[in-house]
């Protein structure tokens, strides 16, 4: 069993990392001033004090997540020298050390935070440590910047629209923790840094998705020019101290975009869709369930036979599919439109990543449930009148589909 020491195990990322490492069967020792709940053991460590060698005794690796949120040049210098000493000791004992840095890390960063991260990287990478630069971390419990944004919008029902909108690269906290655990014992990773984040997106779009998928509430968009906001924050910083100064805004607006694709491929990590990541479970089930519901109802209406819908995500996972299709909302809302897309000449498409492939599978899945059996096999006694009525319905339904098809095709194309 691997034994990993984690500095900052009670923080936003640390608490998730602790659980995900334990799920891998690893033992986590929390390092810091206070014991993290859930850790198997605790060893006291203080960033401001000299490091004892006994701290890394018996550990197979160390993850350094702790960041000093106090200001002042002294504490930043202490942070750098602590990390340097830790890297030195880890290198001597041949224990892998991973430091969670930041997308803002840069020697010329406008924020002290970014400059400190860069300084630490400079010290530790030559000593064989690994660094990870995550994008904007979200998901899981509402903590960190993500937590601030979410709770602000929940409380005020206001959604800031920064003008101009900065670009951010989001990363789900679980994906980040997967990346940490994947890279930690990789011999080829020694002395390198890795970018772990999604593709760039508008910050305002990020907030909109949080409101829609996480808070599930309507929020009032409020345009906020960045220059005005910065001025306000500068004043606030003077009044209440630098903790709420303009620095954090600056580091957001001056982020350098990272090209993460090659790093993520090397680590074998795939970023989840933001919409999935923002759901309570952080998984794509919610969107897959609504896709499955729409598909089932496109074959026949009604709400019986939810068995097929419940099993739809499971079925897709068994076909190595975890992403929901980008179906237009109107099609999800009115599955009758989806039925019109079922053109016989497209039916040979069987790939599970396509709408037609999923339709093929879902319709067969629907037949394997008992509750919907009567939709497939006429129960009881047959009668001439019943069959005649059925034929009328068939003709009416098909005419409807033929009429709707061109329109739905345009909607589907527009979405793409």
């Amino acid at each position, binding site marked *: 069993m691997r034994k990993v020491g984690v500095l900052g195990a009670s923080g936003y990322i640390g608490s998730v990392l602790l659980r995900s490492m334990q799920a891998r069967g690893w033992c986590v020792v929390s390092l810091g001033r206070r014991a993290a709940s859930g850790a198997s053991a605790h060893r006291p460590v203080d960033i401001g004090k000299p490091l004892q060698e006994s701290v890394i005794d018996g550990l197979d690796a160390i993850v350094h997540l702790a960041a000093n949120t106090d200001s002042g040049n002294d504490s930043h210098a202490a942070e750098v020298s602590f990390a340097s000493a830790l890297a030195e000791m880890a290198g001597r004992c041949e224990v892998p050390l991973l430091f969670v840095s930041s997308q803002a890390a840069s020697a010329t960063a406008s924020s002290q935070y970014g400059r400190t991260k860069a300084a630490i990287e400079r010290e530790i990478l030559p000593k064989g440590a690994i660094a990870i630069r995550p994008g904007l971390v979200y998901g899981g419990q509402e903590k960190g910047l993500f937590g601030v944004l979410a709770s602000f919008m929940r409380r005020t029902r206001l959604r800031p629209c920064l003008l101009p909108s900065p670009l951010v690269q989001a990363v789900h906290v679980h994906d980040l923790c997967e990346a940490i655990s994947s890279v930690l014992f990789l011999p080829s990773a020694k002395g390198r840094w890795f970018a772990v984040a999604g593709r760039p997106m508008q910050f305002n779009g990020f907030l909109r998705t949080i409101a829609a998928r996480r808070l599930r509430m309507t929020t009032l968009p409020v345009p906020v020019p960045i220059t005005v906001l910065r001025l306000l924050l500068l004043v606030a910083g003077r009044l209440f101290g630098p903790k709420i100064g303009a620095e954090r805004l600056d580091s957001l607006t001056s982020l350098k975009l990272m090209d993460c694709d090659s790093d993520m491929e090397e680590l074998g990590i795939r970023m989840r869709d933001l919409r999935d990541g923002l759901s309570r479970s952080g998984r794509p089930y919610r969107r897959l369930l609504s896709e499955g519901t729409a598909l089932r109802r496109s074959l026949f209406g009604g709400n019986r036979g939810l068995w097929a819908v419940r099993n739809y995500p499971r079925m897709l996972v*068994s076909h190595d599919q975890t992403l929901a299709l980008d179906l237009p909302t109107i099609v999800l809302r009115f599955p009758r439109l989806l039925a019109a897309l079922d053109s016989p000449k497209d039916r040979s498409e069987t790939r599970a990543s396509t709408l037609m492939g999923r339709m093929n599978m879902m319709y067969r899945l629907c037949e394997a449930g008992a509750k919907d059996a009567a939709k497939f096999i006429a*129960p009881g006694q047959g009668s001439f009148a019943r069959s005649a009525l059925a034929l009328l319905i068939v003709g009416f339904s098909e005419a409807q589909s033929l009429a709707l098809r061109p329109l739905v095709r345009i909607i589907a194309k527009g979405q793409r």
Partner: protein
Amino acid sequence: MSLVSIPSLIIGGGPAGTSAALALAESGQAVHLIDAGTRGIDLPPEGRYLDLRFQDTAQWSWQLGQDFQSLRDSGSVSPKLRVPGLAAIFEGYAEANQLRAERGFQLLGALAGGGLSNAWGCGVGLFDASELGPLAALKQMHSSYARVAARMGLSGSSEDSLSSYFGLDDLSDPPLPLDYLHQALWERRSKLDRNDFLLGRARIAVLTRDREERLACDLRGMCLWGCRRHATWSASHDLNRLRRMPNARVEEGVVAIELRREAEGWMVRGRSDGEERLYRAEKVLLAAGTVASTRLALDALESPPESVRLLSNPMAAFMVVQPRMFGKVHQPSFGLAQLSYVLERVSEGQSAFGNLFSTSGLPVSEFLKYLPITRRAGLPLLRTLLPMGVVGNIFLPGSLSAHRAVLNGDRSMTIQAGASADLPDVYRSAEKRLRRGFRKLGAWMLPGSFVAGQPGADIHYAGTLSIRDEPAAHECKVSGEIAGLPGVYAIDGASLPMLPAKAHTLTIVANADRIARGLLERNGVTAS
């Protein structure tokens, strides 16, 4: 590595291998049979299909499989290939036997005790003199037919226009009852032009009365998914019997890779779980399935032919509905063939043969995908249409196929699909004649429902190492011995002299029995 020395080794535990093994074992001979199978079939739960459809909340597990694997393959015509319980039979056959398929050939085989008969193999019929070729004059062939028919348990005996075509009425029990759809067609049979389109009861290896461990068919309609009563015959029943005999050894999980000639007899190299197995035997009986047996034989020949012809029956499926049945609903019925028909003289004087089936035990999705309308509208349509219709298949004479089996440099074998230039015309005229014939029976063939299967989809592979009076090196003597490989006998479909449209499993089983008894006779043993 282990070495086993035995007088005779049988490769393959399908219909042919078990038939020969039983013939030898019952005469007191020591028998060693190797079979590639390790997993058997998974049977569905007890009950009738129509009841289970409405009541069984876990039915997805036997219809789609625990991991929904059945949803992966929706390409093939036969729904049998999508039954999860049968998946273990087909898995890995081509790879294990170093076989490849080209030009759209559907290559299928079984790595399971009982072979392909686990899924099919219930249609029966005696080959007539023209179909048996060099075997026609042998009285042993006819006594073998009688012996294996008694063992398998046939039914369908009926005085009808197919009595002489099947030639089995003396050996069969009366047929199962027909459902209302087949009964209506059957009652109108006198309207058919008797010289052209012949309709009769299906002759089939299904029990109409209990026999030992197998129970009579109770029309539960689970034929597609697997019969818990074992009413339909499969060679796996015979294999079980063989396993219980003290002088027989059935070794599972071994795939034969190579035959090597030795000073006296043969060395057979096999593989089991990556481990090598060696068998030294005077006589080797090849029953690995036509294609796999062919590769073993061609590979063992000193100078194998560049390619050999492989026969199969070009096939198609269709659906006919009877307007009189409008307003009916499904009733439980037998899921395999209820009626059979013969279309005479479809190609060079040879006949086509086919069966009619109820749709009541089949998933509606199997039909839904063929409808030319949206499935939302198609579903209520089929709910009305299916209880009015029967599905039919048609098999054309094997002479219309022209597949080639080519031995490659790396000792693997490739099957290339091919067909006679006449085939499209034969399909067209057969469809037309069927359409006309069914009209006389009061049934309409649904437009667009006649769908030809891809080459090889019938899985009636045969005739690569045909029995001839004057065989070439790769062909068989009448004794079943391959001319260029003394001591090696091809006892499965590979040695059939020809492939008529008629169901050929019974002939394979009988021929294997005959060849095994011939071996006994030459060794001076009286066959029991």
